[in-house]
């Protein structure tokens, strides 16, 4: 059962990957979306751990608690959840096939600009919600070093 700090550390590691991927978002928006979603998962779990010490058993369990107890956060999280499922699972099919004609790439559905907004707006707001809820200086992103 991971601690709040363990979830925060995993969130920070996801952010480190996001920092590497974001400049490549035009080419790899599926992965930006996927990593952003899993960072949000750890943030939500850290909040739940803070609230009552519990861990979600699966996505459904986590989603339902967000829906019912944190509706405003769920609105932000839900976009990430749906986007990451499309990014991971929607079949594109082989070029030249009917599948490919109807849906060729994730970036035709959700543009890189929209994906960047998922990170800069949705994920950032989720992070702020968690930092305000948990308090005590927990960080889900390593602060940028100032020179």
């Amino acid at each position, binding site marked *: 059962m991971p601690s709040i700090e363990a979830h925060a550390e995993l969130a920070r590691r996801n952010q480190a990957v996001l920092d590497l991927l974001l400049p490549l978002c035009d080419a790899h928006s599926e992965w930006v979306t996927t990593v952003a979603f899993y960072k949000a998962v750890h943030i939500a779990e850290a909040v739940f751990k803070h609230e009552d010490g519990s861990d979600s058993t699966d996505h*459904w369990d986590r*989603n*339902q608690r967000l*829906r*019912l107890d944190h*509706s405003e956060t*769920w*609105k932000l999280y*839900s*976009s990430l959840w*749906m986007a990451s*499922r*499309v990014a991971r*699972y*929607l*079949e594109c*099919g082989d070029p030249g096939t*009917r*599948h490919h004609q*109807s*849906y060729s790439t994730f970036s*035709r*559905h*959700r*543009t890189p600009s*929209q994906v960047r907004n998922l990170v800069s707006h949705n994920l950032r707001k989720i992070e702020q919600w968690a930092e305000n809820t948990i308090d005590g200086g927990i960080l889900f992103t390593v602060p940028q070093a100032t020179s």
Partner: protein
Amino acid sequence: MSLTNDDLFIRISHDDERDVSFVTEDENRFFLSVSETIAAGRIHIQRRDELNETAERVRALQKRAAMWWKSHSPDIKAAYLSYRQGRFTFLVIQKGVPLNEKLEQDLIELDIQLAKSLEVRPLSAEVMLLPECDDACIHTFVPKADRRLIPHAVH
């Protein structure tokens, strides 16, 4: 001729010491004690009530999904309500591939309403929005056999 209670009912009283004989439509015959018969009846009533209540909740869910579809139909290619692994999924296929952000936000609002609806709870229901794609693509999310089209929800 008016019917007496005896004409309408087979009365089985808890203090009756005889067994109850049953004959089914396929001529299967079996016996239960009175206490077993009463216990079986109670289980049936509870199950029947639970099924009726679940059916009402499913109808409420179908109605909500259909109303939502109706008010958003110009933007929707197709919509399905499926049941799989103990959960309902309201799967909406938008028109066109580029994300319809307004449709997504409205669908998320519906998702919250369903989760909080006293008519629908405690049924488990979630929503999912997909870009316009062919049937094989949708299969990844909900197998064809589990899909039920929302009535008239195909454009």
